[in-house]
């Protein structure tokens, strides 16, 4: 009798402990991300290169230009020479090249020179751009994280890392939905509009079940904008399917939650 009571008590204690520990707020993810993040960012820039609307594109291009300027100012001028010392053109050749370009009398010669320089420059340009893109992307992302005061957003980002999707997988999914989601532009800027959709996914990324978590809010009076936003989010998810999900680890991502928040975008 005593034994079974002890068993029962210890079992209940463990159950309570496990339940408490498994609550989302108890999960503490590491704040510092490993250096892998910067490697993954190449993929992100490729994946997230979706066509933005003119307004968003303008803003992003402006930010990028500003960032590029900063990057170019910071970069030491001798870096290029150090990378490929054997390919630095000799002074004589440089002179010839300048003359040829100025005169433009011999198209063939100019062409060959141009081709040589273009190959030469191309590699440099690719290198610097990629580095710049990496820095840009990293800065953009970190700035966004800093700007975003939404606790839910930060927690959930960590959640995704720790519980199933890598950064690139998460970004691929996000980029896919960015392209499918037509944001209703009439939404008021100041409203607290966050739509959370829970999805049950099949292994091929198609949706077996979708649920708007605050669906009762849709039918409340005065929540027209929320309803419109929720419908647009649901539409996006449906249009996007099959979602870009990893080929492995189905158990980890078979249920996911998407948090749609257009405010950052609408505020410009």
């Amino acid at each position, binding site marked *: 009798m005593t034994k079974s009571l002890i068993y029962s008590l210890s079992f209940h204690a463990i159950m309570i402990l496990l339940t408490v520990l498994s609550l989302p707020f108890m999960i503490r993810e590491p704040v510092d991300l490993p250096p892998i993040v910067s490697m993954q960012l190449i993929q992100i820039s490729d994946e997230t290169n979706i066509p933005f609307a003119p307004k968003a594109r303008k803003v992003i291009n402006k930010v990028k230009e500003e960032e590029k300027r900063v990057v170019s100012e910071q970069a030491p001028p001798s870096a290029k020479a150090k990378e490929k010392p054997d390919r630095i053109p000799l002074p004589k050749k440089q002179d010839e090249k300048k003359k040829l370009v100025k005169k433009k009398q011999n198209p063939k010669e100019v062409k060959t020179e141009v081709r040589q320089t273009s190959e030469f420059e191309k590699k440099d340009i690719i290198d610097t751009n990629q580095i710049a893109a990496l820095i840009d992307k990293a800065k953009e992302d970190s700035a966004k994280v800093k700007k975003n005061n939404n606790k839910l957003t930060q927690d959930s980002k960590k959640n995704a890392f720790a519980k199933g999707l890598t950064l690139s997988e998460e970004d691929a999914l996000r980029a896919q939905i960015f392209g499918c989601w037509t944001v*209703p532009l009439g939404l008021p800027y100041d409203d607290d509009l966050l739509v959370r959709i829970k999805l049950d996914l099949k292994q091929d990324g198609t949706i077996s079940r979708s649920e708007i978590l605050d669906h009762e809010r849709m039918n409340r009076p005065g929540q027209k904008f929320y309803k419109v*936003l929720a419908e647009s989010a649901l539409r*996006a998810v449906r249009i996007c399917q099959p979602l870009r999900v990893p080929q492995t680890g189905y158990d980890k*991502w078979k249920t*996911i*939650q*998407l948090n749609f928040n257009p405010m950052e975008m609408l505020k410009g």
Partner: protein
Amino acid sequence: MKKTFYIFVILFLKFNIAHSLIEVDITRGNLDPLPIAVSPLYVDVQSENYKDIKIKELGELISSVIEKNFKSTGLFNPLNKDAFVQKPDIAHLKPRFEDWRLITAQALVTGKISVKDNKLKVEFRLWDLAAAQEMVALAFTTTPSNWRRVAHIISDKVYERLTGETGYFDTRIIYVSETGLKTQRVKKLAIMDQDGENTKYLTLGNELVLTPRFNPTNQLVTYMSYFRNLPRVYLLDIETGIQEVVGNFPGMTFAPRFSPDGKKIIMSFAKEGNSDIYTMDLETRLVEKITEDSSIDTSPSFSPDGKYICFNSDRSGLQQIYTMKSDGTNVKRISFGNGIYGTPVWSPRGDLIAFTKMRAGKFYIGVMRSDGTGERLLTENYYQEAPSWSPNGRLLVFYRETKSGKDGSGFSAKLWSIDITGYNERELKTETDASDPSWSSLLSK
């Protein structure tokens, strides 16, 4: 017993880890206009012709008006009808969603019309193609000659369902039609549908007319006219054509505007070089002086709740925008930027005040919050002014004068509209040159 316990714990742990939810934040999306298919409305074969209206063509005509309305918003992209696979009659009953999704449509409008006993009956449905479900279904009955209004009402319903905002298509714009040389301008009051159709002239052009303003609750219009060289505020009933002078003021009255409940007119009255703001109750004809200052106070406009008034005044030296309570107390200056501010108009939403700003020889149409913060200049030009809000507070209509002719000596005045985001600036087609527009409230509420 122990074994069972351990197995249970392991299973619980596994279950718990497997079901920890992945969350992904979607903070960006596509700002492109929503692709929408507007299928021609199916015309019932038993429909009778009505006077000079060809009922067979009505389905196409109504869908064209709806498409034009959607396109003008900048929020929707009506898809080309040539790409439509399904016939209107079948589409209206039950669309094949896959066919419509193939042409990248996200929403579909279908409908059916019939004319019987000289009554036009129009049904329409809005479909969410991704969810494969109906979003709205409504039917209207009216006289066949009202078919354009039916198209506008359908546009309003679809717009409201897809954006959450009330529409503005079933509305009219009153303006001053201008013809002739600049020195001998003939100005008439004119009214048209918001899409530029059905223009009608309300005055003959014998007297100069200025600043017409719609009553937000009915079809009354107030405006300023120079009768016997004395500028006075008039009231005109569009339905009956009856007009009358507002109040018995000994001097010049100008810049009239209705209160949000339509029961009062607020205006400026000038006497001996000083102008102040007055209201007049249209029922009791009681006149009340609102401001009392030695400066020029003019262009008053009520907030939508009627509790506040914005106006412009030169009491600080330069013409700036001020707000006050509707009884004239608590006057606050809200514009502090470089330049001169004028023609403030309170948005029907209540959050913004539109204005004209003049700075360094250029004119701007802009908006600011009612406390004066968040000033945004939406459009810049050589000469433009007099913004007026659409009834949903989403768009502004204003007029712009541009130089014309080979040598640039001539000029033309046209109506333009712009979204409060600063996008979708477009010209509203009018039969003549036009100025001083005022947008009506929704005709069908």
